[in-house]
């Protein structure tokens, strides 16, 4: 921990803003150059998902499936059954929604080694509007047995996640955003499947966050400390398997929890953390995320403001919880 309470792998100030889907595309190329036996499939969004980088360098191992997401998923299953490591990419809403039943039956059920990496998740998709803003993809994938679900928090973590899922055998869903957002880790950061990372120590409230909302959570902690509230920030990039130990430990220290995600609070991180704490360590909780509604068109980052998904919303939720806790104590509950 540094003097500001940050773990030593966290940058003191938010770093350069990056498109993490670019990092995905470049990491695929590196894996190809390293001789990994990967093949890449995409459903007519190769420029947006950045799989086009791989396609340019390895055209014989790159399969444009056209606008056929279901076909893509079951074809990826066939590649896995023949010993390849297939990556299947498209927008999150199509990868998890349109093709859900193909993912369930042909990938998750037999536990095949297919890597589903979807981009354009969340309201930050922006102008394309509600039809293209996946707000339920984490829920749809998390509910499938055998399926792992990973949501990287910045560029540094994205590269590590893509490498980690190649080393790991079995189906996985990786959720990436469209917009660029700040890098928060230095090169000493280390991602492990199944591990949550404490980014900042704190004693009054724990903020659990994923993806783009991790940098908002760190900013919320900076806001809170000015008002004398000490917030612990935890990156739960491995939504499944979820790190029960770290979640219970940090929640039990602070006794108040806020979750933050660019996703529905139903079934997403808020749901997952509530399930863990409800079972192992009941704790007052406030979930920041999309509240059972669809998105809308607009600038992606402005939509975070519009739907109350900014650092100050997280900070307000934390202060609200602390007020509740104090009132409870004062009436002797």
């Amino acid at each position: 921990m540094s003097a500001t309470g940050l773990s030593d792998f966290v940058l003191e100030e938010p770093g350069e803003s990056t498109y993490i889907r670019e990092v995905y595309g470049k990491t695929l190329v590196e894996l190809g150059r390293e001789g990994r036996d990967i093949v890449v499939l995409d459903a007519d969004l190769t420029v947006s998902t950045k799989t086009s980088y791989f396609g340019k360098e390895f055209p014989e191992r790159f399969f444009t499936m056209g606008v056929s997401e279901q076909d893509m998923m079951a074809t990826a299953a066939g590649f896995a059954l023949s010993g390849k490591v297939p990556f299947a990419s498209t927008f999150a809403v199509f990868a998890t929604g349109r093709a859900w039943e193909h993912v369930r039956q042909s990938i998750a059920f037999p536990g095949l080694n297919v890597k589903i990496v979807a981009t354009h998740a969340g309201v930050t998709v922006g102008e394309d509007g509600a039809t293209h803003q996946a707000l339920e993809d984490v829920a749809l994938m998390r509910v499938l047995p055998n399926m792992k679900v990973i949501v990287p928090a910045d560029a540094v973590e994205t590269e590590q996640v893509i490498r980690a899922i190649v080393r790991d055998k079995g189906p996985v869903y990786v959720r990436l955003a469209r917009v660029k957002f700040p890098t928060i880790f230095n090169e000493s950061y280390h991602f492990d499947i199944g591990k949550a990372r404490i980014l900042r120590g704190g004693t009054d409230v724990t903020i659990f966050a994923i993806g783009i909302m991790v940098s908002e959570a760190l900013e919320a902690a900076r806001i809170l400390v000015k008002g004398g509230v000490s917030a612990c920030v935890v990156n739960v990039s491995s939504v499944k398997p979820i790190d029960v130990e770290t979640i219970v430990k940090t929640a039990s220290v602070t006794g108040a929890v806020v979750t933050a995600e660019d996703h529905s609070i139903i079934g997403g991180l808020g749901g997952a953390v509530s399930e863990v704490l409800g079972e192992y360590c009941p704790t007052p909780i406030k979930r920041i995320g999309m509240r059972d509604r669809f998105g809308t068109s607009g600038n992606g980052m402005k939509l975070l403001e519009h739907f109350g998904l900014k650092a100050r919303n997280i900070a307000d939720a934390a202060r609200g919880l602390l007020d509740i806790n104090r009132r409870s104590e004062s009436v002797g509950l």
Partner: protein
Amino acid sequence: MFKTTSDVNVLKEVARKVRIDLLKALHRAKSGHTGGSLSSVEIIVSIYFSEMRHDPGNPRWEDRDRFILSKGHGVPALYSTLAHAGYFDASELMTLRQLDSRLQGHPEYDLDIGIEASTGSLGHGLSTANGMALAFKLDGRDNRIYVLLSDGELQEGATWEAITSSSYRKLDNLCAFVDRNRFQNDGAMADIKDIEPVDEKWRAFGWEVENLPDGHDIPAILKTFEKAKTVKGKPFVVIANTVKGKGVSIFENQGKYHGVAPSDEELEIALKELGEAA
């Protein structure tokens, strides 16, 4: 490696035994798909006993050809064929659909018993076969892939996504069969949502199409295997006109036996007709 045969009398006798054992298994299970299992028997038996390169003693053999039962509900015919080919003991057929059985109600990926893919939800199997075919081409391997679809499955939009991919990718290491028995769960396809003209549709999608007037005619099935191997640069499909419930008079062309197992009396009649004492 499994020793294949083109002796029609041997294949007919295997088909008879496969029918008897799948009916006994369905009867014991008290549920399952009778009609669509019986309609597929000659096709599946011919593929395993006359055509495919495979080894029941080494089900993970890298050089094996692959069979995917996209119409997973017909799996009693596949289990019975696999047992007769030597993948597992025929006595295990009587565990069909029971707790702890490897013989699940619809096929579950399990190479130990020769099941190459989890199927049962229609509209998946051809895509999976395409992925295998692409992987083998990528590696310069000569493994062939056989896939059996139902005709009802052609009502699934995803099937046509797959049909488009196979021809676009010129998958001539792939041979598909359509079990054209003309019935689906709710009745005759013509009364529900007809799919004619089946052959013209596949042809329009870029496939080499072979119409097989009688999908139970073993010598004719064997001829399609030979033709399939002569077609280069495109995938090959056999539209096999079959009889739902084939081989047992009371089940033939009776839509209601799509998803119903034989009763005690029906099994007795069936076994008698198939030349087996109950």
